[in-house]
């Protein structure tokens, strides 16, 4: 060693030596990856071996067989004559339905409460604080049972259904509303979609023009005009006719209209109220993280308070808000699996039935894991993309 240090320093040579820390680090990594790989290989091969020794059939072939069981509610058509694969698909759609609507509502409600907590009005901020502390500290499962019991045990039966408005019924079979039917529906939806696309394009153009010339385009009023005019034009184009499908009591249940089942309502209510308490805290902390100086600086530039909030404070607050918000969205999606407790046919509930009828437990669990992983990763990817988009751009 002494000889080495005393000589003229040679350029460091890469050699495979146990004394080289980077070689050791590489070796450790290879060993760890090897062990993990071996364990995975061992678990898989051992499982397959044990299954075949015990004459337990494996594989995903069962997905093409007839399911034979019914599902309470489904966004797409489904009958017991459809396949297990279709049943699982219905379960996944039900999970997505409650998750997406839940995320939107929880964000809206949570933001409102988060801002209310910052209010100078003692009553408003006090109520918001109590809401947050109560709702986020009661286990979600209990809240679900609570809402489900309220809906199913306090509402009248379908024959004595409450009718707050003509055609609207509230009973322990759910909340029923008249729905629109007819060819014009597609035209109206098409007009609405076109309007959304146009507004986005005009917004993009207006931002570019403002950056270049400083001229401000009245985007708000144009957007409202387009969103109203185009669907109306679609309705005219579709023949200007619409039938209203009013729910009517037929036998034991209502037929027609749009129905929100008690299970869906209870699950949505529970998820939204529970998650919004967390969202409120995220929003509050995000806004408070932006320094008071930013308000004052915006004020000094002559920006009115609303525009200061929109253009100066919120973009900075969002940077703090988005990462924890992503976690809340993921939580809400995964918490929706508590649906089994109150009978909402989400993917866990449907796969449960499937694996009990087919006995393919390992495959069933794999399907559930893959489904949640896909949904959660998609949410993560989207939120990360959004996070990068709003991140501080250094010039």
């Amino acid at each position, binding site marked *: 060693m002494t000889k080495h240090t005393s000589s003229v320093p040679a350029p460091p040579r890469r050699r495979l030596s146990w004394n080289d820390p980077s070689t050791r680090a590489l070796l450790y990594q290879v060993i760890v990856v090897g062990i993990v790989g071996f*364990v995975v290989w*061992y678990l898989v091969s051992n499982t397959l071996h044990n299954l075949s020794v*015990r004459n337990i059939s494996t594989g995903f072939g069962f997905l093409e067989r007839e399911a034979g069981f019914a599902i309470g509610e489904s966004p797409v058509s489904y009958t017991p004559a459809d396949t297990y694969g279709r049943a699982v698909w219905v379960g996944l759609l039900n999970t997505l339905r409650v998750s997406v609507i839940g995320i939107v509502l929880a964000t809206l409600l949570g933001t409102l409460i988060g801002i209310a907590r910052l209010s100078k009005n003692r009553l408003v901020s006090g109520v918001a604080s109590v809401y947050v502390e109560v709702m986020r500290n009661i286990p979600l499962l209990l809240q679900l049972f609570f809402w489900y*019991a309220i809906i*199913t045990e306090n509402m009248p039966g379908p024959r004595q259904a409450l009718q707050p408005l003509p055609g609207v019924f509230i009973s322990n079979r759910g909340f029923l509303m008249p729905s629109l039917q007819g060819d014009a529906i597609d035209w109206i939806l098409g007009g609405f979609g076109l309007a959304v696309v146009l507004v986005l394009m005009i917004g993009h153009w207006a931002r570019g023009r403002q950056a270049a010339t400083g001229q401000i385009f009245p985007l708000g009023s144009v957007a409202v005009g387009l969103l109203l005019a185009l669907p109306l034009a679609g309705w005219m184009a579709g023949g200007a006719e619409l039938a209203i499908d009013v729910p009517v009591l037929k036998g*034991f249940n209502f037929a027609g209209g749009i129905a929100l089942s008690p299970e869906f309502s209870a699950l949505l209510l529970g998820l939204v109220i529970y998650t919004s308490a967390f969202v409120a805290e995220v929003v509050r902390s995000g806004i408070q993280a932006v320094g008071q100086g930013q308000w004052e600086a915006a004020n000094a530039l002559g920006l009115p308070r609303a525009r200061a909030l929109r253009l100066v404070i919120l973009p900075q607050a969002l940077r703090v808000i988005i990462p924890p918000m992503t976690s809340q969205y993921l939580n809400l999606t995964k918490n929706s699996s508590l649906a089994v407790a109150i009978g909402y046919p989400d993917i866990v509930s449907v796969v449960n039935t499937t694996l*009990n009828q*087919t006995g393919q*437990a390992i495959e069933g669990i794999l399907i559930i894991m893959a489904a949640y992983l896909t949904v959660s990763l998609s949410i993560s990817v989207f939120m990360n993309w959004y996070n990068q988009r709003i991140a501080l751009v250094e010039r």
Partner: protein
Amino acid sequence: MKLQKALVIGASVLCFGATAQAGETFDAVKKKGFVQCGVHTGLPGFGIANSKGEWEGIDVDICKAVAAAVFGDSTKYKTTPVTTQQRFTALQSGEIDVLTRNTTATLTRDTTLGLMSTGINYYDSQGIMVKKELGISSAKELDTATVCVQPGTTTELNLADWFRANGLKFTPVVINSPDEAMRSYEGGRCDAFTTDKSGLATVRTTLPNPDDHVILPEDFSKEPLGPMVRQGDDEWFMVVRWALNAMIEAEEYGVTSANIDEMTKSDNPNIQRILGVTGEMGKGMGIDNKWAYNIIKQVGNYGESFERNIGMASPMKLERGLNAQWKDGGLMYGWPIR
């Protein structure tokens, strides 16, 4: 990382454990000195812990009978309460030696799960219960009804099959916990509640006003319930099969736990063979020749077990019906012990 490690170690231990237990069930049971039975988590009359914490029910009696046959002592058993969803995995993995938990014998269960049904100890059928105030007398009047049902059994399938076959519509509400499912039915969320008829009779007695509810006459399915074992150990399979048959045979010949000691002096060669007075019936199964004597003496014959747990001497008050001896018009037909 720590958690991952723990998981990996835990999982591999589990797998080693499973491999180690894949040996002959019969030898393993004899070696450890007791039978591990999978029982219901709590179904009155079939498998439930009483106020003293002892398990009782006609399914538990089969477990006791197997213990009596193998060890000559009906108390040498342990119970593992399993849900409908855990039961097959528990049996497949070797956690339990025999599943005595009102389980329907079907072809797919025998062929795809690596299990075998050993016999039938209760002939059941799926039925449906409604509130009397609906004023209906047949399930065919249930078009468009909402039906509460529990997952994890063939119940959902039978329900859908029956309504399809009759061209009727229904909406299922699938609720995991039995108590929650019953509450939804009681609260009016569902018009009807469906499960095995023995189960309906039982839960009906637990409702505040049992007379407000009627069980409709239709049978949605056949449900032959019986014990199950893993495939791959024929010796063990035979012990479980014949323990049940001994109980049924004993009832046919009038051998009860009370008169068994006089019966050993009987001249009837059938009774002599059952009780091990003559012949070597136990030897072929690798157990004591007095195996059936021990079962009847300590557990009772099938009729005694039925009356005590679900018959007229119990709160369930179920009729023998299909479960009467074949001589009385039922389906219980013990295989000859000879």
